[in-house]
C-alpha cells in the first residue's frame, strides 16, 4: 500500500492545486516586488507589476532569474526578509564558478524538511526505519535536508555524512540501517566496498535508497539495486530552490513528483525562453511560491527534462519530471556535438563495465579530442594486446553510435580512477577557450 506524508496535498485534484498555486503565486510576487529591489528592477524593466500577475496563467510575464543573477546579487541581493528573521544559510558546491548562498527562515527550513519527509515516506519510510544519511553535511544541502526529513518522519537518523566507507558499512550492519541517502556515485562505491569486504546484500537490512544531487542513469540504478539489494529512488532539488526534495520518486520509479504546492515548474526552450507545452523536452524553470527568505521567481535550472501529468500508479496527482539528462552546464560541446556524460555512462554499463570512468576533453591543433578512461574488471582482462584493443574498439564503436563522434577509449586498472564520496568528478575539460 502506498504511503503518503501529506495525502491531502500529494493527491489533491488538479483544480484545487491550481487554486492554491494561484493564491500563493499572487502573494509571492507581491512579497518579492516589495522586498527584493534586484527583482523589482527586472520587473520594472519588463514593464510588469504585481497587479499583472493574477494567476499561474500570467507566470510567463515575469522575468527569468539565472545563475548569473545569483552571482551578481551575492550575497544579500535576492534576500526578501530581514536577516534577523533568517536562521540558516546553505551554499552550492561552487564547482561551476562563484558560490551561491541561499537563506532560510524557520518557515523555509520547515517546508524544505517537509518536502524531504514526503520523499522518505514515498520510498516506504516510517518511524520504524533506520535512515542512514551519507550525503555531506555542512553548507551542502544534501545532508541537512534528508536529515531534517528523516527526523520529521521519525526514523532513527544516522547523521553519518559522506566518507569513511568501511565505517558506513559497519554502522549499516550494527544498527540495521534500512534506508540509505547519498549521491548515486557514492552509493555505487558503497556497493563495491560491501563486496570487497566479503559481504553480500543479505548481510544488510537496507531496503531502499534515496540518491540525488547528480545526474545518473537507469543502468546505474540497476547496478546499485543489485549491489545493495535495495530499491533505488531518485530525488531532485537545488540549493537555489531549497535543496533536495523539490521533486521525489515514488513506488513507480518512473519520474519524480514535483511538490507543486511549493514550486511551480515550467519547461522552456533554452534558446528563446519560450514556454513549451507539456511533454516537450526543454529547460526546467522553477518558481518558489512559499519560501520567505530566498524566493526565486522563474529560476532557470539549466536542467534538461520533460514534464508529465500522466496518471501515476502511486495515486499522487503531483506533476512529474523525467530524470534530467544532465545540467546544461554538464553538457560538453565536442566538435560541435552536444555530449552528456550520462550518455557515455549508459553505454559503458550496457557493455558490462562498472560506472567507473573519467572523460577527458582537450583541443589539439584546433580539433577537440575526447578520451574516455574506463576501468576494466578481472574478467574483462585478456592476456593479449589484441584482446584488450578489441575490447577498446567495441566501446569506441558503441559510443560512436550514440554520440556520432569518435572517442578514444583507454581501458585502465580497477580502482585506478579516484572514487568520490560526494559528487563524482566525471569530466576533465582541458580546453582553454576564449570567449
Amino acid at each position, binding site marked *: 500500500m502506498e504511503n503518503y506524508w501529506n495525502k491531502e496535498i500529494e493527491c489533491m485534484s488538479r483544480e484545487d492545486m491550481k487554486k492554491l498555486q494561484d493564491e500563493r503565486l499572487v502573494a509571492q510576487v507581491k512579497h518579492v516586488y516589495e522586498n527584493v529591489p534586484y527583482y523589482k528592477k527586472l520587473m520594472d524593466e519588463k514593464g510588469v507589476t504585481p497587479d499583472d500577475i493574477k494567476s499561474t496563467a500570467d507566470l510567463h510575464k515575469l522575468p527569468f532569474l539565472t545563475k548569473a543573477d545569483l552571482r551578481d546579487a551575492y550575497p544579500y541581493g535576492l534576500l526578501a526578509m530581514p536577516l534577523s528573521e533568517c536562521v540558516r544559510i546553505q551554499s552550492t558546491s561552487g564547482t561551476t564558478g562563484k558560490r551561491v548562498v541561499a537563506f532560510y527562515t524557520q518557515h523555509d527550513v520547515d517546508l524544505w524538511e517537509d518536502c524531504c519527509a514526503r520523499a522518505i515516506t514515498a520510498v516506504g519510510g516510517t518511524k520504524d526505519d533506520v535512515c542512514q544519511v551519507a550525503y555531506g553535511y555542512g553548507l551542502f544541502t544534501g545532508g541537512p535536508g534528508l536529515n531534517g526529513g528523516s527526523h520529521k518522519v521519525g526514523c532513527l537518523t544516522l547523521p553519518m555524512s559522506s566518507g569513511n566507507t568501511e565505517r558506513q558499512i559497519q554502522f549499516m550492519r550494527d544498527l540495521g540501517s534500512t534506508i540509505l541517502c547519498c549521491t548515486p556515485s557514492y552509493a555505487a562505491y558503497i556497493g563495491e566496498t560491501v563486496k570487497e569486504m566479503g559481504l553480500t546484500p543479505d548481510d544488510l537490512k537496507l531496503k531502499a535508497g534515496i540518491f540525488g544531487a547528480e545526474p545518473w542513469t537507469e543502468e546505474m540504478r540497476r547496478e546499485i539495486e543489485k549491489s545493495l539489494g535495495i530499491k533505488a529512488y531518485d530525488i531532485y532539488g537545488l540549493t537555489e530552490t531549497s535543496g533536495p526534495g523539490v521533486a521525489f520518486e515514488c513506488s513507480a520509479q518512473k519520474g519524480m513528483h514535483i511538490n507543486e504546492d511549493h514550486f511551480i515548474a515550467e519547461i522552456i526552450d533554452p534558446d528563446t525562453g519560450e514556454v513549451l507545452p507539456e511533454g516537450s523536452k526543454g529547460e526546467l524553470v522553477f518558481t518558489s511560491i512559499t519560501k520567505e527568505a530566498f524566493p526565486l521567481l522563474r529560476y532557470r535550472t539549466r536542467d534538461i527534462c520533460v514534464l508529465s501529468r500522466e496518471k501515476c500508479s502511486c495515486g499522487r496527482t503531483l506533476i512529474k519530471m523525467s530524470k534530467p539528462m544532465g545540467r546544461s552546464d554538464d553538457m560538453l560541446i565536442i566538435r560541435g556535438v552536444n555530449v552528456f556524460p550520462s550518455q557515455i555512462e549508459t553505454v559503458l554499463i550496457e557493455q558490462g563495465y562498472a560506472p567507473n570512468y573519467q572523460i577527458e576533453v582537450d583541443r589539439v591543433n584546433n580539433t577537440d579530442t575526447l578520451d574516455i578512461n574506463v576501468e576494466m574488471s*578481472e574478467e574483462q582482462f585478456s*592476456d*593479449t594486446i589484441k584482446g*584488450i584493443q578489441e575490447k577498446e574498439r567495441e566501446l569506441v564503436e558503441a559510443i560512436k553510435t550514440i554520440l556520432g563522434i569518435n572517442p578514444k577509449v583507454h581501458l585502465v*586498472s580497477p580502482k*585506478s580512477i579516484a572514487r568520490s564520496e560526494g559528487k563524482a568528478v566525471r569530466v576533465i575539460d582541458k580546453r582553454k577557450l576564449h570567449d
Partner: protein
Amino acid sequence: MLIKQISIFVENKPGRLSAVTKLLSDNDIDIRALSVADTKDFGILRLIVNNPDKACEVLKKADCTVSLTNVIAIGINDKPGGLSAAMDCLYAANISVEYMYAFISKSEDQAYVILRVENNDKAVEALKENNFTILKAEEVYDM
C-alpha cells in the same frame, strides 16, 4: 604438461613495474622467465614463476589486474636453426603463435621457448610427433 603463466596489466605510468616486482620480491616469488608486450597506453607483463598461484593471489590482493593463462614450454637445441625447426613444425601443422619468448637453460646446449597458441592440445601433439621436448609444469617452476 601446461605451464601457468601470469599476465599482469601494467599502465604506462612511472613506478608500475617497480611496484609489481617489489610485491613479488616481498613474497619470495622467483621469476623464471618474462616478457613485456607494450602499446602507447599500457603493457602486459607476462611471467613464469616458481609459484604461480601464490603470485596471482598476492597480486590480486594488491589490486593488480591479473590472469592465469596456460602456455606450452618446449626445449630446443641452443644452436642456429633450433627455433626455426620448432616454428617449421607448428607452421606445417597450421598452428598460429599468439606470442612467444625464449630463455636459455643452465645446461650448455638447451634453450626453452614459452609458446602461447590458440589450440594447446593440437600444438603439443604436433611438437611431440616431431620429437620436441615438452616440459612439465614442475620442471619449469622448480628450474
